């Protein structure tokens, strides 16, 4: 502890000040003797505090206090560490690492942004890590009394140049803060816990908080340690900062969830409909950008032919651009378009389409590597063959693996295979080491288009987009309509069984024997041969998957998520009734 303190005498130490502490200050201020009563009141309140922090004036007060502390702690620092003019303003935004505060800040920032079109958001990304660091420091909560001291210490400086929006809030509680600050000391740890537990259940929080509160009262009022120097070493190691920012798993954000928002999740179709109503701005400028890029088409062709491969990068979907390139330049030549963003894409399927459709080879291959070697030989033997590969999103989830990149690189290094690809991911270049880069022989072209990634993101499992599952559902229905009633019955049996077992994590499928038994009992089949015949049909339509279990028994599984299955059953029943 002593060493720690020693260390902290040099480094700024900030402790977390939770709601409870803040409440304490307030209530204490209002009447030190009434503490107990206030505590009781507190116990009633937390729910509200958590859910709607701003709705009541009283709570606004709490917010103000909290604000003040943060301003004090951080404002100084930021003024210290940032030399540019926007320090104060930037600081204003950067304190906002706290839960509710944070959202407020973001909202506030948004409001400010909104006020005038010309209004600008000064941002200082540099300040960000700093804040994060402080968050984590608070999280540790190991020292006791010096926690709030620095804040008091710095009040003066902060007040001298407070952010405009915060000035009012700061002025109010100044007088009290000094005397009460010690109380927050031993408490902060519990607060942290509470904050963490918030996520899980409010009930827990309640009890936690009450416990914390009860402990506050007898908390030893430690003598204020010597005032901490706020001066931070500006040249503090960036690396250290990073790890400190990431050392704690706790990050404080608000607990609001989308469910509480009345807006329902929308599905892909709805999303598209809505977006089509919105006309994008700056279409003229974007058009101009695109025209600039289109001028490069001939040069690309030239460079492709001279043994380079071309990779496009920059913000915005490059799909339309490449499509245009394809339409204008590649009409007379054999080319393969590969949608890297397609979730089912794999090197295997790419190689297959080359061998089967381009080279008209009907044989099969032992492995992908064999196939690759075969293709490479084929292209080397016959120099009149030419192939253009257009890969949208070469850096997609499915293709970014080392092996895939190696194979594609080897293909592209052939002198009669021309590759033009686009990458979007921030870290896309990290896919390639020197060896691969020399295989690809890239020429980089920046093509910032600002066009929306409509196609690319439509397969993505976005958080906000409902997994509609409409596709598998319709295909299920479609396939099953074509089957005999018996087959449908068999399939329904399997669905029911899978739905019944959907919660068990160890469910690997229905064993064939059991299935056969059930089918027999339902008078759907009379021999296991007929069942097998049906299953083959399902398998051909990719409706079921079979897996050998550890005991060698065959297990049947429908590779469709359970919600879709439930929907399907529902529909079936509707139709039946």
């Amino acid at each position, binding site marked *: 502890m002593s060493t720690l303190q020693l260390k902290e005498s040099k480094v700024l130490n900030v402790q977390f000040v939770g709601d409870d502490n803040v409440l304490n200050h307030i209530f204490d201020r209002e009447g030190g003797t009434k503490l107990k009563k206030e505590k009781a009141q507190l116990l009633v309140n937390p729910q509200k505090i958590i859910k709607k922090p701003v709705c009541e004036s009283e709570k606004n007060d709490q917010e103000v206090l909290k604000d003040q502390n943060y301003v004090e702690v951080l404002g100084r620092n930021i003024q210290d560490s940032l030399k540019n003019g926007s320090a104060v303003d930037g600081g204003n935004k950067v304190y906002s690492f706290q839960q509710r505060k944070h959202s407020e800040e973001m909202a506030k920032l948004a409001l400010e942004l909104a006020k005038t079109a010309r209004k600008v958001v000064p941002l200082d990304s540099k300040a960000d890590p700093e804040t994060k660091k402080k968050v984590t420091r608070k999280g540790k909560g190991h020292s006791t009394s010096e926690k709030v001291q620095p804040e008091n210490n710095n009040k003066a400086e902060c007040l001298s140049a407070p952010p405009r929006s915060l000035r009012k809030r700061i002025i109010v509680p100044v007088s009290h803060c000094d005397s009460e600050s010690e109380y927050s000391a031993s408490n902060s740890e519990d607060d942290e816990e509470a904050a963490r537990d918030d996520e899980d259940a409010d009930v827990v929080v309640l009890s936690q908080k009450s416990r914390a509160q009860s402990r506050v009262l007898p908390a030893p009022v430690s003598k204020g340690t010597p005032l901490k120097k706020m001066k931070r070493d500006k040249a503090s190691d960036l690396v250290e900062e990073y790890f400190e920012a990431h050392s704690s798993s706790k990050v404080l*954000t608000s607990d609001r969830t989308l469910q509480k928002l009345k807006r329902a999740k929308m599905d892909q179709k709805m999303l598209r409909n809505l977006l089509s109503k919105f006309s994008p701005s700056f279409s003229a400028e974007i058009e101009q950008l695109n025209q600039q890029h289109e001028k490069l088409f001939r040069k690309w062709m030239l460079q492709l032919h001279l043994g380079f491969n071309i990779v496009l990068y920059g913000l915005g979907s490059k799909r339309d651009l490449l499509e245009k390139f394809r339409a204008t330049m590649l009409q007379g030549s054999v080319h393969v378009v590969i949608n890297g963003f397609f979730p089912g894409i794999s090197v295997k399927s790419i190689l297959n389409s080359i061998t089967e459709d381009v080279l008209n080879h009907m044989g099969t291959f032992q492995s992908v590597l064999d196939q690759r070697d075969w293709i490479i030989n084929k292209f080397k033997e016959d120099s009149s063959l030419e192939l253009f590969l257009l890969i949208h999103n070469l850096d997609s989830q499915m293709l970014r693996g080392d092996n895939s990149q190696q194979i594609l690189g080897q293909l592209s290094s052939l002198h009669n295979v021309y590759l033009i690809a686009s990458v979007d991911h921030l870290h896309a270049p990290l896919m390639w080491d020197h060896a691969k880069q020399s295989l690809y022989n890239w020429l980089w072209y920046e093509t910032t288009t600002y066009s929306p990634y409509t196609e690319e993101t439509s397969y993505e499992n976005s958080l906000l987009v409902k997994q509609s599952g409409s596709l598998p559902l319709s295909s299920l229905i479609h396939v099953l309509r074509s089957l005999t009633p018996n087959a449908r019955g068999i399939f329904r049996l399997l669905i029911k069984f899978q739905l019944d077992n959907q919660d068990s994590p160890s469910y690997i499928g229905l064993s064939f024997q059991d299935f056969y038994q059930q089918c027999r009992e339902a008078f759907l089949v009379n021999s296991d041969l007929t069942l097998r015949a049906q299953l083959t049909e399902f398998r051909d339509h990719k409706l079921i998957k079979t897996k050998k279990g550890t005991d060698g028994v065959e297990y049947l599984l429908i590779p469709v998520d359970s919600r879709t299955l439930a929907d399907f059953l529902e529909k079936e029943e509707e139709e039946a009734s």
Partner: protein
Amino acid sequence: MATSSVSKGCFVFKPDIKKRKISVPIEDYFNNENLESEDSKLRFETYHLLWQRMKSETEQLQEELNKNLFDNLVDFLQKSHSDFQKNSSNWGCQMKFREIPTAALILGVNVTDHDLIFKSLTETLQNNVTPYVVSLQAKDCPDVKHFLQKLTSQLMDCCVDGKSKEVKSVKTPKKTNYSMDSLSSWYMTVTQATCPKMTIKKRTTSSQWQSPPVVLILKNMESFSTKVLQDFIIISSQHLHEFPLILIFGIATSPVIIHRLLPHAVSSLLCIELFQSLSCKEHLTVILDKLLLTAQFPFKISKKALQVLTNIFLYHDFSIQNFIKGLKLSLLEHFYLQPLSVLCCDLPEAKKRIKFFSVNQCENIRRLPSFRRYVENQASRKQVTLLTNETVLKEETQLLLENLHVYHMNYFLVLRCLHNFTSCLPKYPLGRQIRELYCTCLEKNIWDSEEYASALQLLRMLAKDELMSILEKCSEVLQSSTEKHLDSTTQKVKDFLTQFQNLDADSKEEEDACGSQSKGLQKTDLYHLQKSLLEMKELRRTTKKQTKFEMLRENVVNFLDNLVRVYLLPPESQPLYEVVYFSAAHTLREHLNAAPRVALHTALNNPYYYLKNETLKSEEGCISNIAPDVCIAYKLHLECSRLINLVDWSEAFATVVTAAEKVDANSTTSEEMNEIIHARFIRAVSELELLGFIKPTKQKTDHVARLTWGGC
């Protein structure tokens, strides 16, 4: 045909056979629309020819550079294998018998160049030592089984190459078991079968090799897993007597890695000899020397472009291949961008081409800044004729081109001489490598630079033997050129050399004189000594007589200075230099050393940079609220720490966007508006996810994790 589908990701397009026939020849793409130049085809051909010449030159160089190394390697292989063949009963030999001969080839970190080296090495070995050369990569051998499998199949392939297809029948059974046993038995059958054949063919090696060794090349040994290597070495050492294996390790880092990868028990089974390849920096020097620092190729690179290329080499990959690629790109860009690059060919050809120049092309010449400068310096009457009369212009251009050619010839000779002088100076004021010197010379008048002054000062202090050796080198350089432009200079250097040699005789006399004087100084007391010393000092100061050597040295340095001032003019001073110098360094950097992350950040952070709309203009680090959705979402997300609450984010986004909308339309927010805004937010978020700034997380409901730290 559409290229988006929910069921597949690959779309093959095959045009009809008829359509396919009319494919466009490459040179048609060479037509740069901005230039409206008619001779694009000719330019492309020139480019192609020049590039082929440069490429074959580099390949030849590479071969020469590797030759020494390969010779050593082949010697080693032959020696170690003949030891093996003697099969003596000597105890020492028996011990050695257990050791696998191994060549550790240290190739340096430029992994990209290794493939070429290995390729030519394989060829050399196959021609000189043994038909059985196999090279393996770590990727193919995750375990010993795959290792042996690869080894076997490649060996069989070697065999198929050597013999006809009769071996194919042998191929089928091997699929099942791969072991050292099967390998060695295969080896026995193959060698016995081929032996008679070989003698018939009278191959040079056949008499020596009753059984040729099997050479296994492990490319990039560091990436092999230790277990596989160890197992393989132990196994094969057991079979060495029937399967004469020789290993070649390709090592990128340092020879220590062998001992780090292999424990003593294993490495003691190897008889390792080290081979060092030429370092890539020396390689680069040679390439620059032969491609750019010569008048042989008309194409030249400006200082900035050269710096970009060397920087990529020195700070990124040390790859000769990439350097050559950069060279190729600059050549291509030069011919693509410069309409007059059609003259960038050998002098006689260029002169011929000028004769057929169109009016347009003549206009292009007149537009060249360097030509305009030249015209301005002419007499007024000549100015008029140059600007109006085409035949005069053509003649003048021919003359200028010839001058340019001569300029380059002299330039490189003098540059080399200067480099000879400066490369031996302490602290290398003008750079250790000739490319550094070249860069400074390209940039400006070198004699104006401080470094040059200090270098001259240092030269004035050189000793005689150093000076002489330098002069000798210079005279060699000067004599090496076949052209006679610098004849007088060569003669002068030779004169200097003879003068220095004559100095020897003269200096002896001087020494004698000194000796006699020193004798006079003997046997005096302190007072007199002091006095006489003072006198001597006085004497020296008044006469300030330099020795002959010092005078000569001064002359040499002045001569050099003179040479530099006359011949090392920066290329910008030469009329028509644009024809041969490629100067668009930025395109090189853009295409070879791109910064996609910076581009992404700029696009998100400062859309005005791309979308030149005044409403988007904003201060540093700020963004206008009508910016594209992604930009706003990005800005807001920069505010957050590691986790971002989607609700807060969407609300903030909505606030910004609705405000911007209101400015536009003054409408009240309807429910539909909100929906649309929400949809836009969803799109922005999923775009940021695609770009890799955020990812969904399960740490907390409805949160996303931020993947960048700080401001990109």
